[in-house]
């Protein structure tokens, strides 16, 4: 039941083709139900996911982001997810330093066999982001041009 008062976060998921996308397919074939808030963008591998896409998502109005791929050692391309893991370690640290709300990015490993893990991941992320509320802090800054502003006026 969705009423007007419940905040429905917009969440975008970046997943790899071989594990998480397939895992989410399995969630479907297993007919497990989950929240409608998450939309998937398919990548060949987590190694392909550009960190800028995460930033762009927030600027475009996403309240949360999921990034998911094969478990360590299970990468279809052997090491794409290891590269991605390093990238996320660094990226998260930078975002945190800058004060970006890193709780809004959920990283996960979901294999092709973990259909129920995918459903749980989506549901948990949705409820966590819902609790955090809309990411207006970020989105408002995106409106700067509309409001004008001068030196030092954010």
């Amino acid at each position, binding site marked *: 039941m*969705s009423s007007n008062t419940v905040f*429905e976060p*917009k969440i*975008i998921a970046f997943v790899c*083709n071989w594990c998480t*996308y*397939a895992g*989410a*397919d*399995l*969630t*479907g*074939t297993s*007919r*497990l*139900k*989950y929240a*409608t808030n998450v*939309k*998937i*963008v*398919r*990548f*060949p*591998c987590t*190694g*392909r*996911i*550009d*960190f800028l*896409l995460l930033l*762009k*998502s927030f600027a*475009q*109005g*996403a309240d949360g982001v999921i990034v998911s791929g094969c478990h360590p*050692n299970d990468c*279809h*391309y*052997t*090491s*794409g997810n290891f*590269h*991605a893991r390093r*990238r996320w370690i660094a990226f998260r640290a930078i975002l945190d330093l800058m004060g970006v709300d890193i709780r809004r990015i959920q990283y996960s490993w979901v294999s092709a066999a973990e259909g129920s893990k995918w*459903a749980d991941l989506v549901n948990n992320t949705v409820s966590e982001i819902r609790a955090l509320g809309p990411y207006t802090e970020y989105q408002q800054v995106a409106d700067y041009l509309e409001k004008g502003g001068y030196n030092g006026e954010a």
Partner: protein
Amino acid sequence: MSKIGVFICHCGENISATVDVERVSKEIGGMEGVAHAIDYKYMCSDPGQTFIKEAVKKYDLDGVVVGACSPRMHEPTFRRACAESGLNPYLCEMANLREHCSWVHEKSEETTDKAIDLVKMLVEKVKKNKPLDSIKVPVTKRALVIGGGIAGIQASLDIANTGHQVILIEKDPSIGGHMSQLSETFPTLDCSQCILTPRMVEVAQHPNIKLYTYAELESLEGFIGNFTAKIRLKAKSVNYSTCTGCGACIQKCPVKKIPSEFNAGLGTRTAIYVPFPQAVPNKPVIDRVNCNYYKRGACKICEKTCQVGSIEWDKEDEIITEQVGAVVLATGFDVKGADFFPEYGYGKFKDVLTGLQFERLASASGPTFGEIRRPSDGAIPKKIVFIACAGSRDPAKGIPYCSKICCMYTAKHAMLYQHKVHDGESTVFYMDIRAGGKNYEEFVRRAIEEDTVNYIRGRVARVYEKNGKLIVKGVDTLLGGEQVEIEADMVVLATAGVANCGSEQLAQKLHVSYDPYHFFAEAHPKLKPVETNTAGIFLAGACQAPKDIPETVGMASGAAVKVAALFSNDQLVREPVVAVVNRLAPPLYSTCVGCFMCETACPYNAIEHEEIKGRDGSLIRTIARVNQGLCQGCGTCVAFCRSKSIDIQGYTNEQVYAEVMSLLND
């Protein structure tokens, strides 16, 4: 891309039961750039596909989005349909409305909204799609097998028997590898030479196999289907086309005290030598390091004995080039030897041996003709201690892994000893007994029960000499850590199996990855055990990890099938999902600055250095180029390129960016 056709599938009721498909097609139909949008009961059915084909022609579509089941299911179907109607298949994308939407949500406004978003996202993506051609690479139907142990022999024979050419190179003067050194083999105790020799001969005589012994790989360039191998034929100093293999020269050679590699140092050989009597080819080479002539400039006795004048003093290494389409790596393994076990007295006490040396002692063709005798005094040892896990499973020694074969060959050794020395007493110190394999556990039990080998679970701390006896000091963990001390006549260490020295350099030459212990790495530990990360290069045998003969042979046949499968087509057709580095007109050439971050990131070594040269031949810049034969399309390089100079077809920056942008728009 401006005229996109969108086809929404009901999937019977699978989608339409929860998603309002009419609303989806209606709303999408109003999107900018969508020329045609319909929904239909079964898009994948013949009539459904016909709708697509007709629409492509009628509306002159330049892109198609099918909103249906998972692309992992029907992407090929719809791409084929597009291709049949004249639209480049890679201009067709699928939105997953079933697995990712209708099946996982209840019927509601939101579910339909989400379906619309999913289709929108793919419409935006497909607007940025570019027509692609699948990649076709010609295949040279000839394989290179490196290493002539049982793995290389088996792989060569299997490939050759499918009718394809094989080039087998072996660094030693003879093929055979470690198996030729073994006495009898577990778990059946059949004579190693007896089962191996016929295969060695078959290799030498097979019309499809070209054998180069005393040869090593110099370099390998190219990619799957199209490798160029440079092979160094080391100078043998003997002309094999005239040499009859009579062996007269060997008899006369005055340098006789060279430790024999074949006998693991227990016997000797001459400077001109055949490593063992059953060697293939059975012709000698001159070991230039030890030869008097090469050392001191005088001798040439062999030349005088040779009736056919086959000795070639001035012969130099020769480098030949061969074109091959696939490579099987079968360079095997090695065992740890001298100096690795000072605490066990190896290298210090003559009667402390490695397992491989014991094989030679037990072998009928060995230095003692199969009798177990002490190297120190030739006496028959009455008490013998075998130490398993000598080095293996010992992080302190840098070998934390299990060498897998030692438990079995130790049991075999103890058994052989008991069979040969009936009044002998044998003890085995072990950590665990790993006898996983058909009839293996039974084999070990036989050693313990029938051959009364004494098994003690525990580690040996030290081996030292006292009064001409070897004292083995250890603990028995099953007896609660009780100290045990055994006086032995001989100690045999089951030393760890390790990667061949030089395997690291070889891996680098071949651009295959290797593990921290320098064994070659398989492409996937479960699903691609014989493939490497480099397409077209396969693994067989102990070069991937220590393993026994049955496993080695199985793997070799597996690799051979992979090669044969590759050779079953004249061309290799691959999805064009590969990376490309942008190219621009001079003076830019490319935005790539040649930092080669992409190179270090690429798991497949697909990034090459391309030199851009001016008209005068001077180097202007070095930029990256993707070898499309090697690239597997993971796109890891793309995310690393700071200046966005490299992109991956099918998932280009523009495409994924458009998806993200569309998804969150209102």
